[in-house]
């Protein structure tokens, strides 16, 4: 009993000190390998310079009501739309529409009702929806229409019809003056 150091002594259930050492070594080895793997995995996440490009300043003074521009933020298109009073009214009126699958009020998606700012990436599989140019198809709800798989967005950028699950996301932005915004 006391001289267990000489040879592995089976305990009542057949386990030995050698088994314990084997399990402990394996556990440390697995955990250590896992930790050593992390730098490799994390190296594939966005790098510091990629993260640094995270704000975009936009001058919106030249955009007339009914017009929209597309700006680049983090490599993605962002739609900045100067909405007409009719578009705002429609968006607000349809806050309770039954076909809103990602329920949000129009007021919660804008800071100033005439300026709708959304990321122009379809929430289905990432295409850029059409509707920025006046000649583009805007879908059944007057907002945007994604040509890839047929998603329709309304004048608040909310998904109304088609395979996309979510509304066009609203990025973080603030009005740095009456005519400029900073996205990000």
């Amino acid at each position, binding site marked *: 009993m006391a001289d267990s150091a000489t040879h592995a002594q089976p305990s009542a259930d057949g386990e030995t000190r050698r088994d314990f050492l084997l399990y402990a070594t394996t556990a440390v080895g697995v955990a250590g390998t896992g930790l050593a793997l992390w730098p490799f*995995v994390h190296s*594939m*996440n*966005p*790098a510091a310079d*990629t993260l640094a490009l995270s704000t975009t300043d936009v001058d919106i003074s030249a955009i007339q009501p009914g017009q929209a521009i*597309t700006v*680049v933020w*983090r*490599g*993605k*298109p962002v739609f900045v739309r100067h909405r007409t009073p009719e578009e705002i009214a429609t968006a607000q009126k349809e806050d309770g529409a039954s076909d809103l*699958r990602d329920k949000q009020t129009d007021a919660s998606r804008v800071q100033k009702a005439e300026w709708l700012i959304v990321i122009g*990436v379809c929430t*289905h*599989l*990432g*295409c*850029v929806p059409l509707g920025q140019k006046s000649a583009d198809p805007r879908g059944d709800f007057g907002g945007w229409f*994604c*040509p*890839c*798989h*047929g998603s329709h967005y309304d004048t608040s950028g909310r998904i109304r019809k088609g*395979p*996309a*699950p979510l509304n066009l996301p609203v990025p973080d932005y603030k009005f740095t003056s009456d005519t400029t915004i900073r996205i990000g």
Partner: protein
Amino acid sequence: MSGFQTNNKVVSWLDQRLPIFSMMQHSAIDYPTPRNLNYWWNFGSLAGFVLVIMILTGVVLVMNYASHTSMAFDSVERIMRDVNYGWLIRYLHMNGASMFFILVYIHIFRNLYYGSYKSPREVLWWIGIVIYLAMMATGFLGYVLPWGQMSFWGATVITNLFSAFPIVGEPIVTWLWGGFSVDNPTLSRFFSLHYLLPFVIFGLVVLHVWALHTVKSNNPLGVEIKTPADAIPFHPYYTIKDLFGIGVFLMFYLAFVFWAPNFFGEPDNYIPANPMVTPPHIVPEWYYLPFYAILRAFTTDIWIISAKLQGVVAMFGAILILFALPWLDTSKVRSARFRPLYRQFFWLFLIDCLILGYVGGKPAEGILITVGQIATAYYFFHFLVLMPVLGRIEKPKPLPASISAPVLKEKAHA
């Protein structure tokens, strides 16, 4: 059968220290092969031949390719216009990818027809599916490298598939991209992995052949080799037959390379990638189309499971279900020659896959949505219902006593 013998002292010296000649003798010359293999058994070696072509052409292409978003498109055009024989090497590589998939699809359907996935060849079958998955990944990564419009938007759509998973989805997509959209970090990592994966495939092919040589080839009758009269040595009988196959295949392959090099491609990929404009109709490469159709067949959210997640799960499930096929198929008989019912359903399944491929290449609208949904349902019905049930209700035709028995009987009659 004869084993390795040599009078050459150098070869003998080396072989005693590294039995590479003995191994070649054992696995490429003496390897006992069923005597009745038909031409459907050529496609494995053909696929291996194309893998070698892909690696060779790829290694040379890389010498002139620049994996940076600002240079990738132009560097490919330079290969096409300025590099000596660059056009040939690129077209061999481009069309080689399509050829690889044509050969592997025929190889897979050969297995389905002759029941080659059944015991004792389940692991051989599994390794084959892993090779197929690795090929799909490699093909997808490679298609991104020329950085045309289809490259960019194909990469965007496919990587976005992972965003369907709740909570972990978005971080996974950001991690895959190395940024907040498909961009330079994405291109350079795709290039790295596209160079790596073919060598992984090569390793898997070694395992595939090892497993094959352990359990031996199946054959059109689906009965095992029982007597020496059932088998012939691989060399010269099948080396010459495989070579003949390579000759025929090269005529088919090079006809595309020389006379229709862009037949399998999309014109939009000759427009440089533009992250601000999506092409009106995004289609993946033809070899993914059946799975693309399955992805798009799901259009209604069920409770909290979005249509998108259902599609993604079904698409991966459509391939993963193949792993379970050796157990889903309850019939003891391998070859469809002796399975009168299964033989008909095999052809129905093949047609179903072709319909899925057709639907996957068209815009998802109108009647095609319904057709895609029915074809998707039938795809899973085939594996989950038909395969288990057929084995129970079907009365197979009597099997021959051995591979050589029918031949010897014919001789006796003559």
